[in-house]
């Protein structure tokens, strides 16, 4: 079977020395183990993320995504754009949706792109998230069939968050209770806490940084519920969810008088370990709160 190939948009936070560099390292290991090829979009730029509206308005923000899409059309023709970051995926998909619906915006976007010597032909289908590749293109059964070290004895709270769910949805699932992350955990032989009630709660997004006193309650609730359901660790598909829920645990503990200390991992780390990758392949050394139960399986 021909290797599956995609035009890959890794995003700012995945770069070396950035907040989700462990997401990219484990994604690279994961796709190698799954025999999927990711062709990075050359010279990609930031998507503007969810907070970019404040300084960027609408058209400059759309131009950011259009530049990436134009570069992808040019250098990786015929390949679907795949993003691992929720905001990258969302911004790219949203931009195309706006351009599909407005001839004015499309014309203006191309006028702006001309300044960078580019043109957006709008040929490719909407951008996809990596979890869609795993679930829709590969499928749970095939994913399961490659497991070498089942994640036995680990209880995972599958924290989906917002943007890898709303507004586009994954695999046609409900917004209120998507099951895909739980099913991925189960495919890897782990125990999914299917009634984890904070799975689609917002982590505060950018406001975790700008308005911590207002948004840390979100992080508190997400973690407390994971503990209440007996989770050993949290798993998420989103780099901002991961960062907010992991790195501010100390701050949340101070504010609410708690002793939270729960690891927050990515699905790509789970798959890498279950497929026989090492701790280093899974970038478990990039955790601030070590995922020791996962390390134990990787080191077995």
């Amino acid at each position: 079977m021909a290797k599956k190939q995609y035009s890959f948009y890794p995003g700012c936070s995945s770069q070396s020395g950035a907040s989700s560099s462990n997401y990219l390292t484990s994604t690279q290991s994961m796709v190698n183990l799954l025999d999927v090829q990711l062709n990075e979009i050359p010279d990609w730029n930031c998507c503007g993320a969810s907070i970019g509206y404040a300084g960027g308005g609408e058209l400059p923000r759309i131009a950011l995504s259009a530049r990436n899409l134009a570069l992808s059309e040019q250098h990786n023709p015929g390949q679907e754009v795949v993003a691992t970051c929720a905001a990258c995926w969302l911004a790219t998909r949203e931009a195309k949706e706006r351009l599909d619906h407005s001839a004015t915006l499309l014309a203006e976007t191309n006028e702006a792109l001309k300044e960078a010597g580019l043109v957006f032909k709008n040929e490719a289908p909407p951008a996809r998230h990596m979890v869609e590749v795993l679930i829709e293109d590969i499928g749970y059964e095939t994913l399961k069939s490659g497991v070498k070290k089942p994640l036995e004895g680990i209880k995972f709270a599958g924290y989906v968050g917002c943007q890898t769910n709303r507004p586009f949805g994954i695999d046609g699932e409900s917004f209120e209770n998507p099951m895909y992350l739980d099913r991925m955990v189960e495919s890897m032989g782990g125990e999914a806490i299917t009634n984890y009630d904070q799975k689609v709660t917002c982590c505060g997004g950018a406001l975790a940084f700008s308005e911590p006193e207002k948004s840390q309650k979100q992080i508190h609730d997400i973690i407390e519920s994971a503990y209440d359901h007996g989770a050993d660790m949290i798993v998420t598909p989103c780099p901002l969810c991961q960062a907010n829920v992991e790195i501010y645990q100390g701050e949340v503990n101070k504010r609410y008088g708690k002793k939270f200390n729960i690891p927050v991992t990515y699905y790509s780390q789970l798959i890498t370990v279950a497929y026989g990758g090492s701790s280093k392949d899974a970038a478990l050394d990039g955790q601030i709160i070590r995922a020791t139960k996962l390390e134990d399986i990787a080191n077995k």
Partner: protein
Amino acid sequence: MSIEKYTRNFLKEVEERVEEGHWVKMCMQCGVCAGSCPLGAHWEHTPQKIFMMIRAGKREEVLSSDSMWMCTSCYQCIVRCPRKLPITHIMHGLAYLAKREGLAPKNQPTAQFGQLFWDNLIKTGRVNELKLSLGMYFKDGFSQGIKNAMAMQSVGMGMMKAKRLNPMEIMGGHGVKDKSGFQAMLKKARELEDGRRKLA
């Protein structure tokens, strides 16, 4: 442009000047958005109220409200709205108009952070997380900046130890190769949008 043209019809102004603003008239005041917002406890006005205020012509009150700045972009309001209004985007659009018109609340932290984020990303084409964090800590001056940075020291150290924050990023860090083309593109995009939306 003459604002006078709009004073008696703020809804019309919103339709013409705000991202996805043409949807506002579709709101049927059910309040599901108000009950779905994760930062609902902190809003001055719910989206539902904002939409009614727009129709009532309350230009000053809407654009100076802190509400739009509480949006975390969680999209809960969008997926639950029975009329399918893109509420998240309308909030972003209103916030942007408020800022451009000089009516956004002064020293609103998310408004400040949003601008820092944009300025940061357009400089090299990719976000520099170290400079972004420092920019936010030091926005109210040097001594407050040191206090903020000290308060967050353990977070920063943990990030550095896990190699997820690189002190060398202060020297420049990641970026696109075609910086001049990238910046020219954004300049043109802003020019075009400013013209169409009559933003000064």
